[in-house]
């Protein structure tokens, strides 16, 4: 652990950045700078002069960072991508998680291994969160559709709420479709008959 390391996070997802920054802070890395807007990215990185740069793979500005490998008068210290050629699993894990790390050339890999591991686990935690959020959102949307369809059936066919739902479910089973799909058809049909 090396609390003095200066870390830059380049990511335009504020939530994911916050999750990662939190994790780094908990582990004692207090020198963390976030860059969300990638305008003048290189100039900003040069002025921060970080030891480690973490960037989301979905960020097109990765190619901009690659320019740092080139000799340039602007670079104070050469930067290299963190690639441990002996450790294919860690590269795989970082690409799977969707993040990549660049470090100042010459930094020992032990000094940043824990940062990278933490980064990978936080990125993975974020995508789990995102998947759960998506699922919750679509479940909520489906419920709204089913409720509307139930209401239509109750009015048009003079059914109780339970009977309306049972009808939707039976139809879905018979037609081998999802209840929400059948419900959507009911709504569409009702709109056509308006």
């Amino acid at each position, binding site marked *: 652990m090396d609390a003095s390391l200066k870390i830059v996070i380049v990511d335009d997802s504020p939530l994911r950045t916050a999750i990662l920054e939190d994790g780094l802070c908990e582990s004692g890395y207090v020198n963390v700078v976030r860059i969300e807007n990638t305008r003048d990215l290189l100039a900003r990185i040069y002025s921060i002069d970080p030891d480690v740069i973490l960037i989301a*793979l979905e960020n*097109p500005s990765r*190619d*901009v960072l*690659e320019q740092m*490998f080139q000799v340039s008068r602007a670079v104070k210290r050469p930067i290299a991508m963190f690639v441990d050629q002996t450790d294919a699993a860690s590269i795989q894990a970082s690409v799977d998680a969707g993040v990549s790390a660049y470090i100042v050339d010459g930094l020992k890999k032990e000094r940043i291994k824990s940062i990278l591991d933490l980064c990978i686990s936080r990125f993975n935690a974020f995508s789990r969160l995102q998947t759960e959020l998506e699922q919750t959102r679509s479940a909520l949307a489906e419920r709204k559709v089913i409720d509307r369809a139930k209401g239509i059936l109750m009015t048009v066919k003079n059914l109780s709420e339970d009977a309306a739902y049972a009808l939707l479910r039976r139809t879905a089973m018979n037609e081998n479709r999802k209840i929400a799909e059948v419900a959507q058809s009911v709504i569409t049909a009702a709109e056509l008959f308006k």
Partner: protein
Amino acid sequence: MSERRARLRIGFIPLCDAAALIVAADKGFAAAEGLDLDLVREVSWANVRDKLNIGLFDAAHLIAPMAIASSLGLGHVKVPIIAPFGLGVNGNAITVSPALYAAIAAVADGNIVDPRVSARALARVVAHRRARNEEPLTFGMTFPFSTHNYHLRFWMAAGGVDPDEDVRLVVLPPPYMVESLAGGHVDGFCVGAPWNSVAVDLGIGFILHFVCEILARAVEKVLAVRDRWARENPDLLARLVRAHDRAAAFVEDHTNLDEVAEILAAPNRVGVTPEVTRRTLAGHMKVAPDGTTRFDDRYLLVGRNGTSRPDSTQAAWLYAQIVRWGQAPLSAELLDAAKAVFRADLFDAALGAQGAKFAGEPCDGIGAFAGPPFDPNDVKAHLAAWEIKRSFPKSRS
């Protein structure tokens, strides 16, 4: 077909020169070879390279110099990559802001469609700006090891502009080029289709040059695979090459122009209007916001005139640029290694030997607008022809 069906994951960047790959996947040419292609749209060349290197992709649409850089271990880990098929020759353009266009036109000593005239004029613009203590001009390109970088450098250096000393060259992701030009963050850029057309359509850029005006035959994108993957899967590779060859022929048949433009335009492919992709494929480019067009049938070649057969002369030319700009030392071993990336033998193995000569192609295989003919066995002579160049820093390994 007796061969086993196989599924391949292939990375690409949304650009018109992925046409052969996209058409191979979406028009059934790959399926006819028993291949199911999962095309994965990527946002950066670094992602494409890394995912190819670690085996997440079986193959990729890659800028040709990146395949060489990766095989030579320049700028990144050394992973031998080979190119058994050329996806495109030419196809880039240099676009400048209206202000820079006007400045170049104002000091030109002839027609600026001629790159000799425009490059000399650029040198004058640079000198004027320096005399007035103005900021140096900034040009966008796509990657340190990119054709765009070398095309820009080749053009401006021929006019006496030092690309490292007199102007600033910055890497910009292609989708950011247009807004950077609009916002005044760059004065010009070199990029592939459709981004030059997008800038012209928005009225914020003039296409100054097609790259085919600078180099008649400049390899652009290749189908890239890991050397090891190629060795382990010779049959899959041959099928992949055949599918690409048929797709390229389909793209080049102008009776299919509208259909190909539509296929490329799809949101999960290049994602622009078919009208824009059509312009690139046809070589009928709108070059100025007032609607002026310029035609060149060499604008983008997708297999025509033998352009899909990997050519070691092209690999040598790219290596020569890598050396000229100080990204690698000059050595016979590195030259041989660069040439060995372009695998005409694998192309021939899949498609049968194709020794045909094509009329109208440059004698040296490159056709540069400036300098002596290129000799792929004498990179030293190529470098000796230029005053503006860098030496490889000895302190770096």
